[in-house]
């Protein structure tokens, strides 16, 4: 009889180092995760590469100037050119400020309704309706506004002009109310309402239930509860949502192009039918632009990109500072 050979296996090495497969996996996922960084960086890089010489030539005039002309001589080469997007920047700000001023109050009230008043099936239906509205393409808003909304909006503009015409803002040099920045701002307001509503609703939903119930237990009415609990809690998040809407409104192209009468001049009179924004300028000029002018459009795109990036950054900080943690 032979004793069985006892084979004692060598102790396995204990390590926290991931296996080879995990290392590959983590590497691939990390690289994929960096995609947004890479893409945003590439956008800034390539737009700068194409547009930087225009910016260098025009210097600060590119932002403050309000001329956009290319003069070619007989042989077709460019004799003189000057590019400045000042007028369009003013238009962009004007339209988006109108959009924010009108859209945000409506959106916040709507979000309050959805969070604290609507119940059951009605609430579910309205929430999906608002989500659906956020997915509508701007083309749809643009043409609807041009054919259906324009006449009512024009009438409101006339009313405003009639009763508030003494304020310089609401003056018009000529009685042309169609296709004005005011109407474009209204359309943008309609477009950002669903975005702001859904963000505000999410923020309001996160209001701590114990604080709400504490307010009710102290005998607060709904208004008092919202003023004492919901508004202080959600203020920052709602402002962030409004900034997000502002970013969307500033970059909007097709709807503004359809509704607004794009005219290359600085126009502060919101009811007068002339204006523009940077994005619609790019679309308008792109069709007939030569290579040199395209570079200028790239520079305009770069400015627009940086502007929206900045607004989005502020929005993100506000939403995350106030939204997820509360006070």
């Amino acid at each position: 009889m032979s004793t069985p050979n006892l084979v004692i296996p060598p102790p396995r090495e204990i390590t926290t180092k991931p296996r080879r497969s995990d290392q590959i996996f983590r590497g691939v996922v990390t690289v994929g995760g960096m995609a947004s960084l890479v893409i945003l960086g590439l956008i800034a890089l390539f737009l700068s590469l194409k547009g930087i010489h225009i910016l260098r030539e025009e210097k600060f005039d590119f932002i403050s100037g309000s001329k956009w002309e290319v003069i070619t001589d007989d042989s077709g080469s460019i004799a003189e050119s000057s590019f400045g997007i000042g007028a369009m920047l003013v238009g962009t700000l004007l339209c988006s400020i109108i959009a924010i001023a009108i859209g945000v109050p409506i959106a916040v009230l709507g979000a309050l309704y959805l969070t604290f008043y609507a119940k059951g099936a009605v609430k579910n239906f309205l929430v999906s309706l608002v989500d659906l509205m956020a997915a509508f393409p701007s083309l749809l808003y643009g043409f609807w506004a041009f054919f259906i909304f324009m006449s009512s909006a024009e009438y409101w503009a006339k009313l405003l002009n009639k009763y508030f015409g003494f304020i310089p803002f609401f003056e018009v040099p000529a009685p042309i109310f169609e296709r004005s920045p005011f109407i474009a701002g209204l359309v943008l307001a309609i477009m950002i309402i669903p975005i702001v509503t859904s963000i505000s609703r999410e923020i309001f939903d996160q209001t701590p239930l114990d604080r709400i119930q504490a307010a009710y237990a102290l005998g607060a009415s709904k208004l008092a509860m919202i003023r004492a609990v919901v508004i202080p809690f959600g203020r920052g998040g709602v402002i962030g949502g409004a900034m997000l809407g502002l970013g969307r409104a500033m970059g909007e192209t097709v709807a503004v192009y359809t509704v607004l009468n794009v005219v290359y001049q600085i126009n502060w009179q919101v009811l007068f039918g002339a204006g523009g924004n940077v994005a619609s300028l790019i679309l308008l000029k792109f069709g007939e632009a030569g290579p040199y002018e395209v570079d200028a459009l790239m520079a305009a795109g770069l400015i627009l990109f940086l502007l929206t990036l900045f607004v989005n950054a502020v929005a993100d900080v506000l939403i995350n500072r106030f939204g997820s943690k509360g006070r």
Partner: protein
Amino acid sequence: MNTTTVPTPQKPWETTNKQRLSTASIIFAAILISFIVIKLTGLDGKLGFLSTLFIVSTLLIFIQQWRLRDKAAAKDSLLSSFALLGMIMTVIPIVSIVYTVVIKGYKGIHFGMFINDMSLNSVNDPIKDGGLLHALVGTIIMVGGALVISFPIGVLTALYLTEIRGKLSRPIKFLVQAMSGVPSIVAGLFILSSLVYPVTKSLSGMMGSFALSILMIPTIARTSEEMLRLIPQELREAGVALGGTQWRTVAGVILPAARSGLVTAIILGMARIIGETAPLLLVSGGGDSLNFNPTSGAMGSLPYYIWKAFLTGGTDEAFARAWGGLLVLLAFIFILFGLARFISGRKGN
């Protein structure tokens, strides 16, 4: 023997008939008063009536609450009136949009439009000629191409945020958010400056796909991140406890569990980009004839078809064509949205 009398249960929170009656009478009075006001002051139009109705009914409710209860309740009623007003003003445009598109669009719909393209027709020809087959094919190819590019990148980003949770999670979350705010026209300009001018030197459907994927990636990344966060932590622990590596856990447990969520992410991403117009106007060339090859030649798309019919036409036929195209586009969005609701709702309930 003692009998205990059980009090009949009271439900003081339920609306009594008296309250219902007073509400109904307030609504009736509000309508009546607004009619009188309009007749007296010469305000006209739907806007005049509706705003008068709102002001009058808000005031009546305010007074009633003050009389029945107190000042605080009256102020409270103001907020509920205004909240309802906000909701109504949000809903009016969407109802008007859908109504308009359906009413104006159905005239532009006919069977032939799904089997013909516009290569031999101009937008001003009678409706029965030509169609949007080329646009449908182009949109499907470009959206499909964008999906092929965006889905892996979006899901990898979501996995980084949920599974790896590296040091860069916070900045990447911000960058994804910032990317979703990139104006669509900038996406088009970017593809022009980075690919079209230096590399291909011609417009094609593939360039359209690239531009659309820039807009699609953030939607997919954010939706799939939300969906992956819904997967219970226990599943991850169970996968690792059974001896799986992280890779095996993700591939074998997490992703299959999140399958319906990922499909929802795809659908919402498609709904986001299917109507995008501005980048396609810049980079896809916008053809009028059927083109199955995304790498060369101009490629049509639904938004371009609508855009062209509206802007270059001017006749009733062109407008009918455009509204018909919008109806098809809207139908696509409704279908995609319904699918997303159906898929994400099926598991939850």
